[in-house]
């Protein structure tokens, strides 16, 4: 291949750089703004999803209630409570249940390290971790089956509890006093986003084995039961089976909507998924519109720049340039421009996204920063953007050049 012509084109391109700098900037800006918009939009959706799943992603919570219908001669208005034995009763009768966990809690005095606070203390079992997204920080762990079986006095604490009692020191292995009973801290909850909660965010909670809890709180009844179905699609069936079984056991009408309460995150998830899809579509449309506006601008500039060079094309044709030489030159120049503008747009967007992601998050509930400061860069979006803008830019750069190269050289020479 004779490289002299491309070399000459490169030198011409370099001399004309100032003239085309507006196109390069438009391409740079279009790439940067579209990629940032999509990255922040995607990040927002992901953070929303994380926050929503902070409570647990496939979770049904059951609460006791009060009957609103008379049943088999019993009056309405009776209190329906859940008890520890209901766990095995339901597990044995509903095969669609994967995990079922009891939970009791009370607002108790907690002290350590000379400090005294009041926090909600929860008694539960090891499987609670799977249902309620309780991931320990490195060096610690959540409650396990041996803690329960061995009657151990151990505690898993939220990160604000750790901070309140121990400051920056590692609380694992240290002792805390709950209701005058000493417990050993075995783990601290890893920071997470959480937008759904009861009794406040998990960061402020203390979890101890169910058996140990029953020793400091004499109430037998449970505050709630957590259930994870084998498959998410079983959730409605499980709800209705629980109403039937508990209705039979504690004698209430299974149709009674107030005898038991359900907090079904799976059903809520479907609604939220629809909202997220809506947000994604909205951002997609915004991105597409930004892209079209940018592409129209670039197309216009490109067309004007090529049109301005009609005479130059005429001169080259007159002194013996072939069509493919002319078209080849514009193709190469468009390629240089396109590569330069989009490359710097990509690099800048990538760096902005990376820098923003370095900003530490405040995991306090409903903190705006936590939703906005984790933009997610997407290479696939970049490639889609490249394909669309590439086609538009090449059409706008090549079409007038092609037209000029096919015209009579005289016409091009006369062009002013």
């Amino acid at each position, binding site marked *: 291949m004779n490289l002299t012509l491309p070399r000459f084109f490169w030198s011409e391109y370099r001399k004309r750089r100032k003239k085309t700098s507006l196109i390069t900037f438009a391409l740079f800006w279009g790439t940067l703004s579209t990629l940032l918009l999509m990255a922040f939009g995607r990040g927002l959706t992901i953070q929303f999803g994380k926050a929503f799943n902070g409570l647990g992603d496939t979770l049904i919570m059951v609460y006791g209630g009060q009957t609103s219908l008379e049943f088999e001669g019993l009056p309405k208005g009776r209190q329906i409570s859940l008890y520890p034995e209901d766990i095995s009763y339901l597990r044995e009768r509903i095969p669609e249940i994967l995990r079922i966990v009891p939970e009791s809690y009370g607002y108790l005095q907690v002290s350590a390290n000379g400090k005294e606070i009041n926090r909600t203390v929860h008694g539960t079992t090891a499987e609670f971790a799977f249902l309620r997204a309780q991931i320990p920080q490195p060096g610690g762990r959540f409650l396990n089956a041996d803690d329960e079986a061995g009657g151990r006095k151990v505690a898993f604490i939220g990160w604000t509890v750790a901070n309140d009692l121990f400051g920056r020191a590692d609380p694992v292995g240290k002792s805390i006093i709950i209701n005058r009973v000493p417990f050993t801290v075995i783990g601290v909850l890893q920071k997470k986003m959480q937008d759904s909660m009861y009794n406040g965010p998990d960061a402020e909670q203390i979890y101890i084995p169910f058996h140990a809890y029953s020793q400091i709180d004499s109430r037998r009844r449970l505050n709630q039961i957590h259930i994870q179905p084998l498959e998410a699609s079983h959730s409605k069936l499980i709800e209705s089976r629980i109403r039937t079984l508990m209705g039979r056991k504690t004698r209430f009408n299974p149709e009674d909507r107030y005898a038991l309460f359900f907090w079904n995150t799976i059903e809520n998830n479907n609604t939220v998924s629809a909202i997220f899809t809506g947000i994604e579509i909205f951002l997609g449309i915004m991105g597409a519109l930004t892209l079209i506006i940018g592409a129209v601008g670039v197309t216009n500039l490109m067309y004007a720049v090529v049109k301005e060079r009609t005479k130059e094309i005429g001169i*080259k*044709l007159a002194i013996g*340039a*072939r069509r493919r030489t002319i078209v080849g030159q514009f193709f190469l120049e468009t390629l240089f421009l396109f590569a330069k503008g989009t490359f710097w747009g990509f690099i800048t967007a990538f760096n902005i996204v990376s820098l923003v992601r370095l900003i530490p998050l405040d995991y306090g509930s409903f903190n705006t920063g936590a939703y906005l400061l984790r933009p997610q860069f997407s290479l696939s979006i970049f490639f889609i953007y490249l394909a669309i803008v590439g086609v538009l830019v090449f059409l706008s750069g090549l079409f007038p050049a092609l037209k000029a190269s096919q015209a009579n050289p005289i016409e091009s020479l006369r062009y002013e």
Partner: protein
Amino acid sequence: MIKLQDITKVYQTGSQRLEALRSISLSIRKGEFISIMGPSGSGKSTLMNILGCLDTPTSGEYVLDDDKVAGLTFDELAAVRNRKIGFVFQNFNLLPYATAWENIELPMLFNGKSGKKRKARTTELLKAVGLYDWRGHRPSELSGGQQQRIALARALANDPPILLADEPTGNLDSKSGEEIMAILTGLWKSGRTIIMVTHNDGIAARCERIIRIFDGRVLS
């Protein structure tokens, strides 16, 4: 060397039909110095464009160096222009972004001459037109006369046997015009065929033959 037989050129714009050339026949021998004269709109530029393979006739036959030009494709015509014809335009038509050197080198780039040959030929031509020291300048940094000399050097880059000059002195002062004419006359004397369009009787008188055109026909 050049033979035109019954050449017509018709421009059709919508319903309007304009006959720029009407059945023109003429022949030009190798080494002739010819001027084409005629009032504006007489068809002399159209004739020049057809002679220069920049345009094709509507009908008729054009033989250049025993080759029929009529049936050639766009790129074949480009190759003919590149090898056999050198153009000099009234308004120079140099590439504004390229230096004097690059402007002269370009026709050689288009026909694939090696770098060594290009360098030697460009140097030779720049020295011949007395502008070697101006080789790194762009057209905007040169006077009209200097630009036309660069354009002449470019026209000679591939050593074409025919030189077509469309009012080469039209935009120049008399001194620069005289310099260009001196170069053209020198080229003719060295055996090149030169065809020049001009309005200037004095310049035309220095040619071997004058072809007068009026209303698309050859008068003499």
